């Protein structure tokens, strides 16, 4: 792993990865206990991707996220309380309970939102970079998407434009090996990075389980994108520990338990980084355990808060349809 000079940065990266894992463990329990409406898609296993990238961004930089988006949301600075409230459809959620897990947006931290259409946010990310260029802002946008989304035509349309116009956008392909319930090699012909290279976009492949490698690469690319040298493409090789969603439990027909065990035991991004922190003398085992416990307690408090929190009043149902009309249905009453 590449060495970084700032102890605080390392500890924050570790903390953020554990916060994501802890958030997901709690979200999964809420589903299994039938306390959460609907389904959700776990980010567990991919933490080094979101954290390595978002730690290279400023709060004014933007991201677009995916249906598997809790990790991006936490890594870009969101709070547990509003996130759990959103997952449970409560008024204090980031989107007042109107978006839910698949649409969490936290514009205060530059998160333009998760997206439930696979590949649906690629245009949005590219447009956000277009704004930066048109208005002369120096912010960079990172577009998160999975390997499954590389099959969508929109990606090629917007990468073409981003390359033509040198937009400050980084396309971050989280290759977790599975496109929903199908192995990626069954849906992706040729090389994924070569597709970006065909547009003249500089593309990199990186070990997505190594937070320092992800972070070091992203920092360089972000700095260059700010100077107008973008766009860039990164393929991050990672793994999703859960199924496509929390209800996808019997999945041996598409991937083996041995494979899952191998990734969890031997390539877990949190275990790897934790060992490195101890080895380097950046944190002791005790300090790390204390941090883990503190995060667990934070998450529990946030879950308890969200479970007790209010649902939005039913009068909110026709609010926020339009910006300039408080209640959209009041105009032409029945």
């Amino acid at each position: 792993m590449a060495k970084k000079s700032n102890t605080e940065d390392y500890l924050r990266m570790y903390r953020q990865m554990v916060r994501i894992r802890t958030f997901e463990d709690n979200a999964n329990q809420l589903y299994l206990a039938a306390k959460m409406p609907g389904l959700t898609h776990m980010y567990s296993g991919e933490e080094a991707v979101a954290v390595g990238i978002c730690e290279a961004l400023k709060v004014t930089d933007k991201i677009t996220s995916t249906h598997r988006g809790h990790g991006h949301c936490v890594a870009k600075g969101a709070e547990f309380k509003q996130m759990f409230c959103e997952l449970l459809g409560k008024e204090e959620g980031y989107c007042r309970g109107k978006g839910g897990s698949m649409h969490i947006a936290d514009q205060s931290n530059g998160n333009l939102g998760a997206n439930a259409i696979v590949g649906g946010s690629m245009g949005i990310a590219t447009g956000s970079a277009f704004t930066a260029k048109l208005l002369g802002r120096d912010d960079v946008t990172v577009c998160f998407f999975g390997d499954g989304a590389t099959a969508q035509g929109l990606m090629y349309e917007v990468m073409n434009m981003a390359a033509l116009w040198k937009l400050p956008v980084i396309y971050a392909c989280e290759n977790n090996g599975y496109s929903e319930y199908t192995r990626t090699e069954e849906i992706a012909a040729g090389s994924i990075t070569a597709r970006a290279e065909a547009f003249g976009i500089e593309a990199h492949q990186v070990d997505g389980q190594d937070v320092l490698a992800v972070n070091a690469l992203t920092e360089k690319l972000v700095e260059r994108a700010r100077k107008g040298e973008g766009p860039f493409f990164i393929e991050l090789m990672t793994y999703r520990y859960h199924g496509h969603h929390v209800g996808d439990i019997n999945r041996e027909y598409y991937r083996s338990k041995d494979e899952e065990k191998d990734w969890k035991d031997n390539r877990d991004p949190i275990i790897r980084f934790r060992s490195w922190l101890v080895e380097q003398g950046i944190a002791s085992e005790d300090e790390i355990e204390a941090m883990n416990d503190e995060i667990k307690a934070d998450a529990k408090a946030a879950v308890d808060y969200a479970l007790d929190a209010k649902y939005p009043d039913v009068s909110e149902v026709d609010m926020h349809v339009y910006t300039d009309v408080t209640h959209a249905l009041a105009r032409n009453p029945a």
Partner: protein
Amino acid sequence: MRNITLSQAVNEALAEEMRRDETVFIIGEDVAEAGTPFKVLSGLVEEFGTARVVDTPIAEPGFMGLAVGAAMTGTRPVVDLMFGDFLFLVMDQLCNQAAKTHYMSGGKLNVPLVLRTNLGATRRSAAQHSQSLHALVAHIPGLKVAMPSSAYEAKGLMKTAIRDDNPVVIFEDKLMYNDKAPVPEEECLIPFGEANIKRDGRDITLIGTSSMVQVCEQAAEILVREGIEAEVIDPRTLVPLDEATLLASAKKTSRVIVVDEGHQGYGITGEIASRINEKAFYHLDAPVLRMGAMDVPVPFSPALEDITVPTPEGVAVQARRLMSGEMIHAA
């Protein structure tokens, strides 16, 4: 007041708003030097440059999606969709993304973009360049839909659309680009959701959209010679819809025909007729009639194409049936 073409009116509206607000930009295929195939945007790139009049590859979903993200982050894109028929290509970005972002974010994110496109058959362009697809987008909550019926509305509605913080789709009739109408030289903004009573009448209400307003006015001219006084109303925007003005007219005349160039089945005419039936039923002396485009793909041959859209004569025929009581006795 000077007369200018609908095309000039759109051009003026865009130029004025781009001068007023530097976050407004135009994006689409052949919008810059070419000024679009209809030459509506000619001259804008010379004034505003290629950074703000942006030619794209032929990639409608791509530039539509890009515009959504640009709008979410502080600009006001005017997306140029060369033909209304290409709406099918941009539906995900328009209807799943732009329309829902404000709602799904609990009101935190806005998408202030304008999608300007066109409608209208009888240009001998066949089924993929002649459709009037405004009903598709009017169906989706979160989008506003404007339907200018002359150069005046084209300018006033466009300026209002650009200043609106919501996604707005404007349909211009591509056969009306050279039609002239009086347009004021001073600031001209037409509020959304205010229908325009184009002609007063006591006997029957003709509600028309876009170029069908002219069809209704011509029908009214035919009918007045027969002693039938038709009221002609242009809703101007489908979303929001000025139901109150339509209902007041229906209650006054007791007979209504709704005329629109979209397909009649499951369309705008049915929606407006249904609202009048629900809310003015006891004031009606006859069923509300719908006149939309024939429910067939638009044919190429002039002999076939011309019979697929409502005409003044056709509207007059239906108006006479309503006035004679034929509809009631037939039932």
